[in-house]
């Protein structure tokens, strides 16, 4: 039986443990943060009104999950949670590159030609991954994280359920729907390796019992994804890639810096303002 660490004070006593924990928390927080933002850009643009209600609810939950992880970082002495969310530069972010890509051409305000197929694929595949990750995090040696995982997982259940409906209906459709879904799967597959990556501290993260070993997690993920493709009668695409860089190592695209600028526009106009 592995020893449990029950408080931030206790975690801070062991330098190696703390470093690995902090890296993992940044990955979890930054992933949820940027995808919740991308999702929120769909507000008012989703295919129908019911989707608009559901999608914004999911984004609000996801942003709440990011806030929870940032507050765990705050407890460990990393700084104010709001600042961790808003004022870290792109190179300090540890989110997977797949999650930072724009939704399509145009912007929220001008000619938003967003890609719904890519959105469904990205959210469904991310949420499936996240559900599996949360299951593993429930066993984490860091108790505050294990407890947060239990709570987040209960909400994640409904997110997966929501995206599964879109995924299955569009993939089982004929003609354009299925073709566009296949193309979106291809795009996601080029980058999914960067989502699965535990980053440069992967070995330490697993050694400290913070989450299941990366190799084992990937095996579980592959088995689960195999069933997903089977359910819509599509071939499993084989090994996935990391074409645009490893976000876990701070490699990012311009899409992320632009998103962070947009997000922080009001904040940076007067950082001293009291809200």
């Amino acid at each position, binding site marked *: 039986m592995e020893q449990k660490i029950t408080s931030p004070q206790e975690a801070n006593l062991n330098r190696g443990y703390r470093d690995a924990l902090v890296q993992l928390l940044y990955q979890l927080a930054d992933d949820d943060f940027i995808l919740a933002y991308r999702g929120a850009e769909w507000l008012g643009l989703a295919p129908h009104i019911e989707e608009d209600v559901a999608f914004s609810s999911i984004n*609000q939950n996801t942003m*709440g999950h990011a806030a929870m992880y940032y507050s765990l970082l705050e407890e460990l002495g990393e700084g104010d949670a709001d600042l961790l969310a808003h004022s870290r530069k792109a190179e300090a972010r540890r989110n997977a590159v797949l999650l930072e890509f724009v939704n399509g051409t145009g912007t929220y305000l001008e000619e938003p030609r967003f890609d719904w197929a890519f959105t469904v694929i990205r959210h469904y595949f991310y949420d499936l991954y996240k559900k599996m990750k949360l299951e593993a995090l429930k066993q984490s040696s860091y108790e505050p994280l294990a*407890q947060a995982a*239990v709570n987040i*997982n209960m*909400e994640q259940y409904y997110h997966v359920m*929501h995206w599964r409906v879109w995924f299955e209906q569009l993939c089982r459709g004929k003609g354009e729907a299925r073709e566009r879904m296949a193309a979106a799967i291809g795009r996601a597959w080029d980058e999914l390796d960067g989502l699965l990556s535990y980053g440069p501290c992967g070995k330490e993260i697993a050694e400290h019992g913070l989450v299941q070993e990366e190799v084992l997690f990937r095996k579980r993920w592959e088995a689960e994804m195999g069933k997903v493709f089977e359910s819509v009668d599509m071939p499993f695409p084989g090994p996935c890639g990391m074409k645009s860089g490893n976000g876990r190592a701070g490699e990012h695209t311009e899409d992320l810096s632009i998103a962070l600028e947009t997000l922080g526009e009001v904040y940076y106009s007067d950082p001293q303002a009291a809200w």
Partner: protein
Amino acid sequence: MKAVNIMGKQIVDLAMERLQEVKDPEIPSVSVLELGMIQSVSVTERTLCVQALPTFVGCPALDFIKKNIQEALEGLSGIDEVKVEFAQHPPWTSDRISEEGREKLKEFGIAPPPVFHEGEGMWAVECPYCGSDYTTVENLFGPTACRSILYCKACKNPFEAMRPVSDLM
């Protein structure tokens, strides 16, 4: 020692009465107590400690609820300080809602959360107006994070239901 404990118990009882008056900001007919959000109330020395559970992780109303609890309990005799904190453990699950809470949700037009059965992923919801279970889910997600939008095919009314939330999920 015994005298102190008895006094402590009286204070806790009074605190519970007052907590019954603290309502959910989004469902004003139901109290935080009936929703199962209060995990513990205890007295140490002259400090009253309340441990509350958020109903979902990113709840934006937490500060507001905390303030309401704080204000409701301040000024209780025998107490100098009130401490309210939100805990992540145990997880809040929808089976924590009391029988009274479930009835009051119905009065507000919200069907109480059905029991979640592991593995089936199925749940039946009764219409809060006519009681029929001939209902369909229009949208899993509704106006707040814990509610879904349903439609009663028997009395032809749209209604909301609280989703089951379980750590078996």
